[in-house]
Structure formats: structure tokens, C-alpha cells
């Protein structure tokens, strides 16, 4: 397939997403497409897959060649079974016009078995974990027997294990003489799997090169477009000092003065009164049972001021539920949650927030934002009461408040426009700005850099470190081991709804974590004793 001089302008927001791009895809090759968010990768590939009808330029491909795109957030109908979702439009039929469910199941199982994808065809789609949904979506594309398969961030929700499965599948297709395109942010993956790499920036192709001829440093500077002082590998080193246990961290804000603008509208930070020896957040023997299934079992956890506690694992091993427990979105079946020593009266986000918790959710589109409301309305969510004067909403005050936040966090957006006009990175910044404007002593981050480009996730990480330096207790839920390793002081690994192990210091090795996530390491004896928390002796029940 060949794309020639493709230009795409979105009429709705007048954005020139792709500018005069030409790109050739070869059979028998894995082609990585990298670039920051908004570089035009996804748009270009949608055009290649024929999903965007109106564009300038030419897409040349041989007749009969099938091109399938697996989008970043697979859209399934949650109430339908997996196979019903995947076979939509290509239902095998019996003579009488019925769907041949057996044939469908056979085809599905054959494919899933071939790549060892752990997806059940008769499961309801809503019960799929994010990773399973991703794998299912890939299977759905494969059912069409594509000659060209485009994968947009396929490994975002995947653990190492699932990533390996996806890569195996990609190699298999390549060896079968098909073309595979991988859109990703993860340079490590790019280096591992691809044959060729195209870097895009601001809607243009910067360069296409052979993987063998390049290195991550070069790629990231090409992506960012300037000589980046800290390549990805550098970044990891810069965080390595955290392992020493000292608190010699400096806030990594790159904008100093605008911060004062927001400071004026914010109340003085309330967290100064925090006693560093008292936990700001505790889980005590928390379990969650739903429909007779034990989703979370007997979790104990203590978070101290200034600490970054990382929780990682494969998502369906409880990460999605612990997010709900930590944020007050779900009520534990047993056990209790304490925020700054207080028991919540009810398990609702409202009460948790009152007790001093801020929360950046995984699901930014539904939970984290109201897409049809304005950016400003999204920003003032938590401060709304403050702009009430005798019940009336003081629009002038709320506007200056959100303008200050916008400046402080460097958000590129028009405040009066609906939230859905924002890019993913800006949307996350809006959410961050809102949550952090509260100066809460506890902040829960769940998958804060999912789907963000390098620079955006860098900013998020900087914020996390800055908060920690200010003495905020932080829980970081992430299935990205690198993110956890680079940021967290302590790491809790979840496996099947329990905390498999708490790691700090020298235990914090990638392979160890990877093994724990998969439940392999739990049997292996690790030298570290089971003192999860430095104050475990204080708790007689421990």
C-alpha cells in the first residue's frame, strides 16, 4: 500500500491534522509509526484503512487487499458477547440465514488459540479487562484476514506478558508476508519489534529509517523536534536517585512564575499541618465481593505524607477495582478505609473528597471529564462551592480561576469550548489542574500517562514528584512497570485481587515485578522479609 500526498483537515475544529504525507507500507514488514500526541499518526492510519472518507491525496493499494485498523480504544457493545461484537458484519451464516454460531466459535477459537490470546468468545464484552478487550479487538481485525494490519497503541493496557503475545502475533503476520503497522509511544517496543520506523511531527513525516540503524535517543529527539536534554533512558537514570531513600528531590516544574497566579485564587495549602509520622491514607483488611466473586481480598495499606506508593499488576488482577475502592467509587464488602485517620461516613467520592482525597481516574472520558461541558465547567468542578455567592455562581471569579489554572499547567485550549475539542494530553492536564488545585493531602493517580505522548506524560510525572516533595501522599496505580519503577518509593504488586508483595529498595527490579504480576514469583523465595510497612510493628493485628 502506498499513501501519496495525503492532507487532512478536520472541518469541525479546523485542525490540519495531516499535511502532505507520503508513506509506503511493504508486505512482510513491521512498520512502527511514532510521534507525539496530535502528530497525525492515527488520522493518517484511519485514512489508510478507509475510515475517513474526505481527504486530499491518494491511497494506492492493490485490489482485493484488506486493510484493518485496530483503534486505540476498542469500541465494544458491552452487553453483547465477545463473538457477537467481533463477527458483526461478517457473520457466518447457515443455509437458512441464521448465524452459524458453531462456525463462528470455531474460527474464533482457531485464531485465539494460535496466538494464545486468553479471550472467551461467549463472555460478555463488559466483563473483559482492558487488555482482554484490546486482544479481542485485534482478533476481530484478524477475522477479516487482513493483508495490512494497523495497530494503534495496542499494548497500552497490556502487561509484559500480553505485550509478548501481541508481538508474537505481529511477527507471525510478518512472516506470513503481510504488512503490520504499529502506532506507539513506547520506544522500547519500537526497538524490539519493528523493522522500519516512521517518525511524525505536526502532521508531517519527519523521517523514515530502519530500526537497525537507529537508537532511542535519536528517535526521541526526532519526535520532539529539538535536542531533548533528557532522552527516555536518561529519565530513568534521573529517577534512580530516588532509590537512595533520601528526599533530595527538587520540583521539576519548568514554569515558575505562572504558579503564583493560581496561588492567589487558591486557599493556602491545608496540608502543612500534616504529621509525617501519621498515615494519611489506610486500607484495613479491605475486601470486595461482587456477584459472589472475590475481586479484592484482605488488602492492607498505609500511605505516609510525601510518599509515592505504586500499585501495579495486570489490570484484571484487581487494579480496576482498587481504583474504585481508593476513590470511594465502590463500597468495600468488608474492612475499612481511613483518610487522615478518619473513617468515611459513606463510601462515595463526595465523602472521600471531603476527607482530603484527590483522584485522577483511568477513565478520563467518562469519569474524569464531562465532554459536552466547557473546559471551564470541567475545571471548576471541585471549586464550585467557592464561586457561589448567595447561591449564585460568580462567573468572573470562576473564569479567572480557570485562566490561572490554564496558565499554570500550560493547557492549550479555549476555556469556553466544550471539553471534547481537547487533545488527550490537554484533557489530562485539565483533570490534573482541577484535582491538584485542591491541595489535598492524598492524591490517587490511576494510569496517569495512558495514551499520552512522551512530553505530556513527562509533565504528569513531574507533577507527581513535585507533589511528593510538598509532602502529599500519593498512590500511583499503573500497569506500566517503567512508570512505577521510576516514580514510586514503594511498590505493591497485585495478583488475583491481593497484594502479592510490597517491594522497596533492592527488590525493585523489573523482572521481579513482572514475575509477581504473573503470579510466578510468589512461590520463589525472595530474601526480603515480609515487613511491608515500616510501622508494621505498631499494628498488633498485623
Amino acid at each position, binding site marked *: 500500500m502506498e499513501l501519496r500526498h495525503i492532507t487532512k483537515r478536520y472541518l469541525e475544529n479546523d485542525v490540519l491534522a495531516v499535511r502532505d504525507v507520503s508513506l509506503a507500507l511493504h508486505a512482510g514488514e513491521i512498520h512502527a509509526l511514532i510521534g507525539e500526541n496530535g502528530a497525525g499518526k492515527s488520522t493518517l492510519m484511519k485514512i489508510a484503512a478507509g475510515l475517513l472518507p474526505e481527504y486530499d491525496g491518494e491511497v494506492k493499494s492493490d485490489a482485493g487487499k484488506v486493510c484493518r485498523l485496530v483503534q486505540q480504544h476498542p469500541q465494544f457493545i458491552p452487553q453483547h458477547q465477545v463473538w457477537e461484537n467481533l463477527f458483526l458484519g461478517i457473520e457466518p451464516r447457515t443455509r437458512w440465514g441464521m448465524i452459524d454460531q458453531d462456525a463462528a466459535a470455531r474460527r474464533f477459537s482457531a485464531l485465539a488459540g494460535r496466538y494464545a490470546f486468553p479471550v472467551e468468545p461467549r463472555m460478555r464484552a463488559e466483563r473483559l479487562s482492558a487488555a482482554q478487550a484490546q486482544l479481542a479487538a485485534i482478533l476481530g481485525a484478524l477475522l477479516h484476514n487482513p493483508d495490512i494490519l494497523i495497530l494503534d497503541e495496542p499494548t497500552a493496557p497490556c502487561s509484559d506478558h500480553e505485550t509478548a503475545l501481541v508481538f508474537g502475533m505481529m511477527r507471525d503476520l510478518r512472516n506470513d508476508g503481510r504488512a503490520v503497522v504499529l502506532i506507539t509511544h513506547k520506544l522500547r517496543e519500537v526497538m524490539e519489534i519493528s523493522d522500519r520506523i516512521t517518525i511524525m511531527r505536526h502532521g508531517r513525516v519527519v523521517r523514515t529509517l530502519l530500526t537497525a540503524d537507529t537508537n532511542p535517543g535519536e528517535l526521541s529527539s526526532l519526535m520532539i523536534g529539538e535536542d531533548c536534554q533528557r532522552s527516555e533512558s536518561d529519565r530513568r537514570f534521573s529517577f534512580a536517585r530516588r532509590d537512595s531513600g533520601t528526599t533530595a528531590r527538587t520540583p521539576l516544574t519548568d514554569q515558575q512564575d505562572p504558579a503564583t497566579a493560581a496561588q492567589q485564587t487558591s486557599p493556602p495549602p491545608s496540608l502543612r499541618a500534616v504529621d509525617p509520622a501519621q498515615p494519611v491514607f489506610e486500607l484495613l483488611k479491605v475486601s470486595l465481593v461482587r456477584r459472589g466473586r472475590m475481586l479484592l481480598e484482605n488488602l492492607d495499606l498505609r500511605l505516609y505524607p510525601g510518599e509515592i506508593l505504586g500499585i501495579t499488576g495486570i489490570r484484571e488482577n484487581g487494579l480496576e477495582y482498587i481504583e474504585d475502592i481508593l*476513590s470511594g*467509587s465502590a463500597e468495600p464488602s468488608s474492612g475499612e478505609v481511613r483518610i487522615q485517620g478518619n473513617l468515611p461516613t459513606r463510601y*462515595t*467520592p*463526595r465523602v472521600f*473528597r*471531603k476527607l482530603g482525597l484527590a*483522584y485522577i*481516574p483511568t477513565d478520563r472520558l*467518562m*469519569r*474524569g*471529564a*464531562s*465532554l*459536552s*461541558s*466547557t473546559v471551564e*465547567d470541567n475545571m*471548576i*468542578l*471541585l471549586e*464550585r*462551592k467557592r*464561586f*457561589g455567592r448567595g*447561591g*449564585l*455562581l460568580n*462567573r468572573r471569579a470562576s473564569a479567572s480561576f480557570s485562566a490561572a489554572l490554564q496558565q499554570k499547567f500550560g493547557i492549550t485550549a479555549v476555556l469556553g469550548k466544550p471539553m471534547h475539542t481537547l487533545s488527550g494530553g490537554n484533557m489530562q492536564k485539565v483533570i490534573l489542574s482541577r484535582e491538584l488545585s485542591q491541595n489535598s493531602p492524598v492524591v490517587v493517580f490511576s494510569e496517569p500517562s495512558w495514551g499520552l505522548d512522551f512530553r505530556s506524560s513527562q509533565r504528569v510525572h513531574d507533577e507527581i514528584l513535585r507533589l511528593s516533595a510538598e509532602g502529599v501522599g500519593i498512590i500511583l496505580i499503573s500497569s506500566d512497570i517503567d512508570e512505577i519503577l521510576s516514580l514510586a518509593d514503594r511498590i505493591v504488586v497485585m495478583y488475583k485481587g491481593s497484594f502479592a508483595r510490597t517491594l522497596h529498595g533492592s527488590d525493585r527490579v523489573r523482572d521481579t515485578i513482572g514475575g509477581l504480576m504473573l503470579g510466578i514469583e510468589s512461590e520463589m523465595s525472595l530474601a526480603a522479609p515480609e515487613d511491608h510497612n515500616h510501622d508494621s510493628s505498631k499494628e498488633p493485628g498485623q
Partner: protein
Amino acid sequence: MSQSQPDSRMQVAVATIGAALLLTVLLLISVSSTPYAAVRAFFIGPFSNRFYLGNMLNVFSMLSITGLGMAVAFRAGVFNLGGEGQVYVSALTATVAGIALASLPALLGLPIALLVGVFTGAVIAGLSGLFRHLWDTDELITSFLIASASIPIVDYLIVGPLNDQASNLLTTERVPLAFRLPRLLAPSQLNPTLIIALLLLAAAYVALFRTVRGYEWRLSGLNRQFARYGGIHTGAYIVFPMLVSGALHGLAGGLFVYGTHYATLVGFTAGLGWNGIAVALIAKRHPLGVVPAAAAFAYLESGARIAMLHTDFTFELGTIIRAVIFLFVTASVLPKLGISTRVGRSIRLLFRGGSA
């Protein structure tokens, strides 16, 4: 936004309204033996004298209140399909209260009677909200069913125990003379309900778009999950909007009695609740949009009624014309008229949609 967009919207709006009116004229001409008189009665009739003008304004004020009652529910993402019954039941309770309190001074008795109506409507609609909150039953269906169940009960009470023995109408006794709202354009039915309706619309606009509660209210309607995440008590914003919606319908019922009919007659609401839904939808759920929508509705209804009285225009013809105009207006104008929270645009809407 580029400059050309509002212009083209304007053109489309004018074109559709023009087409709808043209169609109405054609319909009138084609079926009437006195086409000129029919067209004149239909279009000019409502403005031709105090009586018709006042009646039209009265229809407008009633529809504004029920339309607003629907719009506020829609804004919170809940659906009240029982407005018709709520108006009816509340009218009855307000009537009964007024008759029972006849010995009180009007300044005390009338507000109490109206409040009884408001309370009745709020309870009936609030029940559906509460059921949804407690047991997750669809408030759209339960509000419809509860209203449907209450209508025969009211019918029975009017014909049976509460019947005015001195009248051959299916009606309750009339409310005390002192309680009745004064007529503004006698002998038309226009009464201070108009002022109350306009005040309510303005108040609803301020409450929804200029207050913290209104912010929470709208947010709950737009994205309940987000609202809950932001610490908004979303359960309350299911029950509360239903209560308010019911209360507005209850007020409409009370005012219908004390302003217009002075009694509750069997079936006298005649689509007030249903039309309120249409008004709210045509108004795009916006309190300020309710004004042109209700005005257009009242105009059409009055025009049809007058044409019926003075020419060979028939009841069915009025129905057909309204249906055709619905189809036209909703099909092409309204999706193009985006209503934002900005006052300026809303005011522009007033002018733009005013003749719809």
C-alpha cells in the same frame, strides 16, 4: 466560529418556517370554501381582539410552565412522562384545598391552595424519582404509569364525591370568589399566570445557569458518572429534578384552576402536559427557548381555534397543521440552532425561533 455559519442557519430557519407557513396556507386554501377568511382567521385571528389575544397569552403562560417543568427535568437527565396527570391531580387538590380554606383571607388561602397543588405534583413526580433512586426503575415508565393511574381516580372524584351537585358539568364546586386571580384582559382568560410564568422562566434560567446548584444539576444531566466523581450527590439530582418538575406541573394545575377555570373539570387539562414535553424539546431544553416554543404553540392552537369558530376550518385540520409544522420545524431548523449557555445566543434564539 466562522461568520458564514449563523447566516446559513438563519437562512435555513427562515426557509423552514416559511415553508411551514406556506404549507399551512395551502392547506387552508385547499380545504376551505372561504379560504381568505380561513387564512385570516388562522393567522391574524389571535391578534384581532383583546379576547383572542388574552386567551392566546393565557395558553402561552400555561404551556410555558409545563414546558419549563419538562425542560428542567431533561436538563438533569431525567424524563417525566407524567406531566398530564400531575397537572390534573394537582388542579384537583388545589381546588379542594381552596374550597376547604374558603374562610381564610385570600392572601393566605390562595397561596396555601396553590402550594397544595405544587406539593401534590411534586410528590407524584418525586415518587418516580425516588423509585429510580431506590430500585432503579425507569422513571420514564413509572411516571407515565402513575399519571395514567391517577387520571381515573381524579375523574371519579370529580364525578363522584367532589361533584358540584348544582352543575351538569363534570366539575367540582368552584373555588371561592375571593381566591380567583383577576382577569387582565376581560373577558379573556388572561390572568397573572402570565407574569408568574415569565418570572419562573427567568428564575429557572438563573438557577440553572448562574448558580452552583444549577451547575451541579446540569452536570448530573450531562455526565452522571463525572458528577458523582466530582462529589456531586447524583442520587439527589434524580429525585430533586423530578420533584421540581412535578412541582411546576402542580403549580400549573393550581394556576389553571385559580386563573382560568375556577374549578377542576373532567379532562380539562387537554394535553397541557403532553404539549409541555413538545415545548421543552422544541426549546432544546432551555428555559429561554421555552418562550418562543410555547409562543409558537399557543399561536398555532389559538389560530386553529379561532378559524374553527369563524370559518369551516375543522378541528382535524388544526391537528394536521400542527403535525406538519412539528415535522418541518424539528426536521431542519432546530438541530441547526445550537443553544449555548451564553446569554447572547439565547437572546438571538428568541428572535430567531420566535416565529417558528
